[in-house]
């Protein structure tokens, strides 16, 4: 803190070496300054000058960070232990501190629990599905598809860069019952498709399908990069030893892909734990709260003006994400 005020002071005037040393504070505080000999002192002041320059350069970032990142985090954390409602926003500190009541209230709320279960369902089914799709597509692009590779790569990646609003309109048509493309397709095989978005049992699978389709492109690109880094010699060696293609994939490619896998799993699970857009644009959490997710429920609570409760819910999601991420790092760490 003192370093900051010192440097701001010197910004106003030209920084001459003499002035810098004069205003640099007592030399005996610095361990280098206390060192014996003239050369040691010079090194010390040069270092201090460097340090000061570094602070000056870092100040804009620090201020922006404090104002726009740290402060909202602190305020929302503070909010989560108070009884703040929408009408308190004018006087954010004239609220009562109620400790962890918001957290217990959130955890005992049946809708929140239902939302948590739905989110878990979404992540536990959606993430493996996305990874399998992405890896399959990546392997196909790496080994199988040689013609129009760029076209396929673009095609698979397209959903990622398309607006969710446009995607939602198309998917609503696809999932329509009766007459939607998916159910028409199922009908050719004599299967009567469900009323995807209207049936509480099928709405979540429909959203998972859509999310996997929408997100596997990113994972695929990363897997593709990982696959291309697998040395061809290892595959050759494996082939000479008589390993089948599957064995080579299982025992050569997959272990080498572990760091890539970890990255993709962590980013996908963070994204899926916060799932919001799919229920927001497709179902509004319905039918019968079957697609209500924790993020969407939190958003609704903010909308109702329950800022304190919603902040507490956000921190619950945050903790869950932190724990899940830590678990993944443990499970997929390098075993040497």
């Amino acid at each position, binding site marked *: *803190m*003192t370093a900051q005020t010192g440097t701001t002071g010197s910004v106003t005037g030209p920084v001459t070496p003499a002035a810098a040393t004069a205003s640099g504070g007592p030399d005996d505080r610095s361990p280098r300054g206390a060192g014996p000999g003239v050369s040691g002192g010079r090194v010390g002041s040069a270092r201090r000058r460097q340090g000061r320059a570094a602070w000056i350069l870092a100040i804009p970032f620090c201020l922006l960070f404090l104002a726009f990142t740290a402060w909202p985090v602190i305020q929302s954390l503070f909010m989560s232990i108070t009884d703040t*409602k929408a009408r308190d926003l004018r006087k954010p500190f004239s609220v*009562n501190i109620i400790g962890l009541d918001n957290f217990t209230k959130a955890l005992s709320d049946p809708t929140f629990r239902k939302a948590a279960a739905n989110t878990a369902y979404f992540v536990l089914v959606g993430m493996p599905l996305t990874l399998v799709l992405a890896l399959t597509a990546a392997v196909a692009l790496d080994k199988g598809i040689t013609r129009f590779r760029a076209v396929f790569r673009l095609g698979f990646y397209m959903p990622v860069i398309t607006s969710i609003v446009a995607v939602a309109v198309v998917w609503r048509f696809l999932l329509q019952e009766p007459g939607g493309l998916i159910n028409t397709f199922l009908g050719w095989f004599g299967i009567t498709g469900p009323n995807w978005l209207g049936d509480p049992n099928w709405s979540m699978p429909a959203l998972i399908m859509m999310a996997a389709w929408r997100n596997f492109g990113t994972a695929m690109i990363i897997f593709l990069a990982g696959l291309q880094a697998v040395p061809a010699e290892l595959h050759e060696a494996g082939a000479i030893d008589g390993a089948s293609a599957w064995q080579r994939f299982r025992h050569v490619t997959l272990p080498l892909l572990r760091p890539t896998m970890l990255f993709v799993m962590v980013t996908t699970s963070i994204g899926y734990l916060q799932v919001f857009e799919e229920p927001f644009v497709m179902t509004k959490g319905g039918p019968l*709260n079957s697609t209500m997710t924790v993020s969407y429920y939190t958003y609704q609570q903010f909308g*109702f003006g329950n800022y304190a409760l919603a902040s507490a819910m956000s921190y619950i999601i945050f903790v869950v994400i932190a724990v899940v991420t830590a678990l993944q790092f443990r499970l997929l760490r390098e075993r040497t």
Partner: protein
Amino acid sequence: MRRTTAITVACMTATALTVTACGREADNGGSGAAQTGAAVSSGKATGEITVWAMGAEGDNLPKLTKEFEAANPGVKVKVTAIPWDAAHDKFTTAITAGKTPDVAMVGTTWMGEFAASDALDPTPAQVDKSAFFEGAQKTTEVNGTSFGIPWYVETRVLYYRSDLAKKAGYDAAPTDPQGLKDMAKAMQTKAGAKWGIGLQAGGEGSWQTLMPFAWSDGADLTKDGGKAYNFDSPEILKATKYYQSFFTDGISNKSAPATPTTEPDFAKGTVPMFISGPWMMSAVEKVGGAGFKDKYNVAPIPAGSAGSSSFVGGSNFVVFKNTKNRDTAWKFVNWLADPKVQSKWYTISTDLPSVKSAWQDPALASDKKLAVFGKQLETAKAPPSFPTWEQAIKGLDTELEKITKTGADPAAGLKTAQQQAESIGTGA
């Protein structure tokens, strides 16, 4: 080392100060006696005022404010159009920052919240409150104090295909609930409709279709002198059972898509009846094509023991407390409530006037379908203006979804909704 200690001490002091500064002040506003705003000066309006308005109203309003400027030379009305989606957030941010406009159009369900944040100016006595439809005027009142005016209104009535009704043996819509159900059934059996009537199977806003039936039986959404929610009254239970019977008897579609296809279904005749607001007239006529005007009609909600009632919605106009030009702001708002201005606004926007006498204007009086809305508005009711209303009613919407879709017990569902509403509290 010393430095970190200093920082720690500073931070802890700051935190301690902040924490001790917390705690609510004695509740001001909200409760207490009804207030009336201070009188507004007479004479011409002067100076500049800023106005926020949403959606199509925001786009069209400048056409109207031009006339106010012409009538009051030197006055300048600056209209800012804001989209509906962003409006609520924009208002709360503006209230928090103290940067509200002078005058604004606000949704009727936001009144309680904004009044609770002490942002609105009470209506002065110059505004004639009895000129408005009673239900509409009620939407401006929070704890007995009126803030602003109802600007335009909408209400829900029954739409039916008159040509198909003839086939089903009906020349006019029935006026009692049982008759409505019989007619819907006849639409299926005699007029080839897939579903008799399109009713919302729970979900967001479905209470607006349920409550007209309950209000027609004399239901009240509040109890204890307007101090608490009242979702499980016998009247609402009766209406809910009636509403549920449409789904259990297969007259209404319990798994209708989340995005309703009301207009095309109505035009095709697959769902030849529904309950909705005035905007649906132009919507179905657009889909139905030329001549569709004569193929459908509107009718009041079937009357219960308390006559025919419905839901009144719309938008209000308010003056914010920290306006710098209060007199001009109120003069502008009062001008908007002028019957001539109201009917003029109808010709610009097709928004229905909230002022009763504006309905005598030939543009409105000559339209037979509009007259049904005008009649319904006289008895239509508004939900209570509690700040937590939207949250509380969401519980009822969710329960109604279970009742219609899974055949859950209406009494148990309403009880759950009531318990939730009680734990949320009115927020007033």
